[in-house]
């Protein structure tokens, strides 16, 4: 540092530097504190039996199996719905609509959807899917609601990866006489597959963590179903079950155990998405 600085200025400089470093460190401390607290309080209650049994009132035991199952069902159903829709919209934006009037609308709409809070998705989903269409609370209504919620994520990640597919690939395919769809199917989409995969992992993370949008659409059910039955029967995912245990039953231990599992799951998924993203960038 410059030796000609006055002591007051030096002091101020040091203060500014400390402030900056401290706020950087703060983020890490928060994360460590949160996960540490969750794992410390929650992990002692996580056991194989807790994960793989149904809850029983007669024996007074808690179990997560129904919630794990409904979480998987919702992930599966939502991805089935949102993937064609989201990838399709992204393909439309990058391959068909380059900057026309519709594409501006679509991008603006996706931006708005990304900003709407999940409780409003829950409210609209309840009014439309549960009440108007009469699906009842269940995985189907929940998944349809989540489809709308996740759509912007899938569109954005797919679009980003489509943009990195070199123009030459498309031109090459077209030059060989392939139609646009043919080129997309055989050249463009396969080269964007890893980007789409990253989007899926991120989407799964969102689905696992979502609660407000599911309260009134997927419901609070604690019974184990098959996939088909679960569609129209109330099924609580892990996040909703956490709310159920903490709020309805006041069972903090079970709630912390679920929170620890959720934290580990979402941390894992996000790290996975990061790794996948990095790998995909390197392969380019």
């Amino acid at each position: 540092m410059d030796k000609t600085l006055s002591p007051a200025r030096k002091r101020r400089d040091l203060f500014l530097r400390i402030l900056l470093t401290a706020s950087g460190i703060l983020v890490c401390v928060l994360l460590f504190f949160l996960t540490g607290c969750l794992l410390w309080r929650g992990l002692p209650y996580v056991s194989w039996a807790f994960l793989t049994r149904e809850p029983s009132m007669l024996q007074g035991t808690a179990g997560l199996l129904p919630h794990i199952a409904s979480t998987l069902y919702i992930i599966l159903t939502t991805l089935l719905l949102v993937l064609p829709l989201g990838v399709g919209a992204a393909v439309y934006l990058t391959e068909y609509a380059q900057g026309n009037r519709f594409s501006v609308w679509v991008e603006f709409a996706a931006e708005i959807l990304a900003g709407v809070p999940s409780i409003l998705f829950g409210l609209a989903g309840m009014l439309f899917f549960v009440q108007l269409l009469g699906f009842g609370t269940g995985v189907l209504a929940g998944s349809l609601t989540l489809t709308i919620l996740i759509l912007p994520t899938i569109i954005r990640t797919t679009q980003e990866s489509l943009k990195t597919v070199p123009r030459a690939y498309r031109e090459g395919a077209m030059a060989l006489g392939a139609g646009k769809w043919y080129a997309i199917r055989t050249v463009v989409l396969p080269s964007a597959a890893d980007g789409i995969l990253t989007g899926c992992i991120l989407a799964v993370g969102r689905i696992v963590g979502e609660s407000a949008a599911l309260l009134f659409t997927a419901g609070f059910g604690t019974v184990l179903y098959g996939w088909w039955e679960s569609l129209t029967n109330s099924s609580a995912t892990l996040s909703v079950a956490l709310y159920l245990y903490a709020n309805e039953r006041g069972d903090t231990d079970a709630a912390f155990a679920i929170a620890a599992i959720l934290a580990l799951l979402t941390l894992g998924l996000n790290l996975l998405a990061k790794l996948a993203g990095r790998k995909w960038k390197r392969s380019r």
Partner: protein
Amino acid sequence: MSDLREVVRRRRRAMERAMSLFFFLCGMAAVAFVLGISLYLIVSGLPAIGEIGLWNFLTDSVWSPKQERFGILPFLLTSVAGTAGAVLLGVPAGLLAALFLAKAAPPRLAAVIRTAVELLAGIPSIVYGLVGMIVLVPAIQRAFGLASGASLLAAIIVLSIMILPSVVSVAEMALAAVPREYEEASLALGATWMETLYFVTFPAARSGIAASVVLGAGRAIGEAMAIIMVSGNVPNLPGSLFAPVRFLTTAIASEMSYAAAGSLHQMALYSIGLVLFLFIMCINVLLHFFVKKEGKHG
């Protein structure tokens, strides 16, 4: 032979057309969803407002379904106060962290912090709520000698932690995009590196920073599950940091299941949804404006 080729060509052309229609429809689905949600919230939100009267609905400070009084002023002011508090607390910390990441941190430390930010963003909001309820609320009660720690303050702290990641990541991008020449010019004039960062880099990235603030505010105003468990949930006007309060979002979440079918109470909850939606739309438009501006700068 040429017939066959003609058939194949025709079929392929039909396929092409079908697929381009399919992609178009997928794109339009996003637009349809936005229109559908807006329409639905408006249609279901208006009847109660009509019955209660817009002025009454927005300015009556009593929310008491039993007495058929539905004033959402307490929720409105609480949401505004909570968001403002979260922005005041979360944004400075977030901006400093972003500046550290973009310009001052050693690369390896920056990578660690950046991962931490991403992971923090991924933790489900309900988990923040649980930790807030079990750890933060009793701590606030003890620290301030209150009857109950579930308060506006608890909600503000939880919200400010939750908006931190979005503020950091958006602001970092804006700060990293500040041209190196600006900083070099400042250094050449004798400013220290820290002075340059605070007084040159920060102002140069102001529109991106504004975007991060607006984004953070949007997150805060829309959050429900994390604060439902820490805010005490009583429909008070937010007169004190230590009073229990109820937000727009938590009003919907907490009473939806208890409102009788088709009652004015239930419809008033839909109307709260509509008010919240309008808030969010304003913020979205603001955000759109800032992002556009930022785009033009770059």
